[in-house]
């Protein structure tokens, strides 16, 4: 590898929600660690897929990377810089595009075009430039006809594509996608697959669809007990997944 630039590095991260819902009788009143001594790395050109059960802390992991929650202990490094304070994160956040699990969280403007231009405007681009960038992204994703649509009238799939556009409009150096295909039909799934395959930036994509992840990523990781399992550790897992789906009627992408 020529380019081995480190984009994201997590070292020994532990995290539990302060008002953890799970502080239940079965857990002896101790905090549940959502992330437990977790380490993870994303380098330039890495295309990583992550598959893990609900509630295993995938969303939390992505939020830790973006500095949206503070880890109890451990180190977050973005682009080689160790970050702890909100101000430091604010500097590096625009370089990493996080797409939220729920597109309704991501798209807060009434109109599509405003939402896509929001990021570039925040980055200091002029009105004209922001509009050009927004239109460019829309046509790249093949949704230029949605430019002046009202967001709450879009379908789930359209919202997801627009949400992806808002993130790509920031021209990030890495992408974090939180279940981009959840609840989508085959057509939109295939479209997102095509978009991700043509991207030349590093990404970490969380999804429940093994075939989807297999086709877009160069390696697939998982999470369990608050830790990341690297691909060599989950080789058996992968087979289990394939077989599990193999029993059910399913379509191939």
């Amino acid at each position, binding site marked *: 590898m020529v380019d081995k630039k480190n984009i994201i590095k997590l070292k020994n991260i532990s995290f539990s929600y302060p008002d953890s819902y799970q502080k239940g009788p079965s857990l002896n009143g101790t905090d549940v660690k959502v992330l437990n001594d977790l380490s993870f790395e994303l380098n330039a050109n890495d295309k990583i897929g992550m598959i893990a059960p609900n509630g295993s802390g995938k969303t939390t992991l992505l939020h830790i990377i973006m500095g949206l929650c503070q880890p109890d202990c451990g180190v977050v490094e973005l682009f080689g810089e160790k970050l702890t304070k909100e101000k430091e994160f604010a500097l590096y956040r625009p370089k990493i595009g996080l797409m939220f699990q729920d597109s309704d969280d991501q798209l807060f403007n009434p109109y599509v075009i405003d939402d896509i231009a929001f990021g570039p*405007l925040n980055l200091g681009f002029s009105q004209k430039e922001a509009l050009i960038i927004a239109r460019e992204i829309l046509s790249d994703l093949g949704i230029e006809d949605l430019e002046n649509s009202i967001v709450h009238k879009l379908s789930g799939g359209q919202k997801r594509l627009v949400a992806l556009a808002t993130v790509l409009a*920031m021209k990030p150096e890495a992408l974090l996608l939180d279940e981009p295909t959840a609840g989508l039909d085959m057509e939109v799934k295939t479209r997102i697959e095509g978009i991700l395959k043509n991207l030349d930036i590093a990404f970490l994509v969380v999804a429940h669809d093994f075939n989807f992840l297999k086709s877009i990523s160069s390696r697939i990781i998982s999470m369990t007990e608050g830790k990341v399992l690297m691909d060599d550790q989950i080789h058996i897992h992968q087979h289990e997944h394939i077989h599990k789906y193999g029993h059910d009627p399913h379509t191939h992408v």
Partner: protein
Amino acid sequence: MIENEELAFKDSLIHKINPCIRILLAVLLSFWVALSTDFKFISGCFVLAFVFVFLASITPNDIFKRLKPLFVFLLMIWILLPLTFEGDMVFTVFSFDISRQGIEYCAMITIKSITIILFFMSFVATMTIGVMGHAMQKLNVPQKFVFLLLMTYRYIFVIGEEYQKLFRAAKIRGFVSKTNIHSYKTYAYLAGMLFVRASMRAKRVHQAMICRGFNGQFHTIDKFSLDKLSIIFFIIVLLFMTIYQWLIVKVLIF
């Protein structure tokens, strides 16, 4: 009303006018009418308002639907005001004196309020709330207010859907709304849940905004250019109003 915004998606002369100009006109004309005490002038504006509604290709059906709440209010005024207004007696109903001034006053209120609503219907209801927000921002309405409006417009549907989901969950398990403590409790829980979800949603929306470089300063795209048609329309309407008022004053004097 906000549900489908059907008036906003028509195509007419009014729809082609710059939204800022339209808001400005609606506010200006409304004040003009509201402050006038000249019956002839107000009646003229009443007719003019119908011309605008026609120009905005709003159907009589749409007009009536939107005026209904006003009619209820006006009916109350018609019942109460003539009875209590001091002035020259015209006739007596059940030993109540009905005054001429009272009737005139009622008629004035009726025409004024219908006129103002028609102005807003033709100029403002013909744009979506989103466009209205952006236009207001251009007109230097405080940003916080504008974004409150825009965000409300965006999320009221999402929260509405969440309410439907919660309510369906209750209904599926046999909940029937009655006047008993169980029903009130259920509604209170629904409202509480809705509040919790809305605040959690707000947190996530804020996080998503931060991720895209938001730092407290809202930027949006300027969409509306001040075209010739809008300026000409604005000038013609104001000119017409001025000349019309001047004429009426003249006619009254001579």
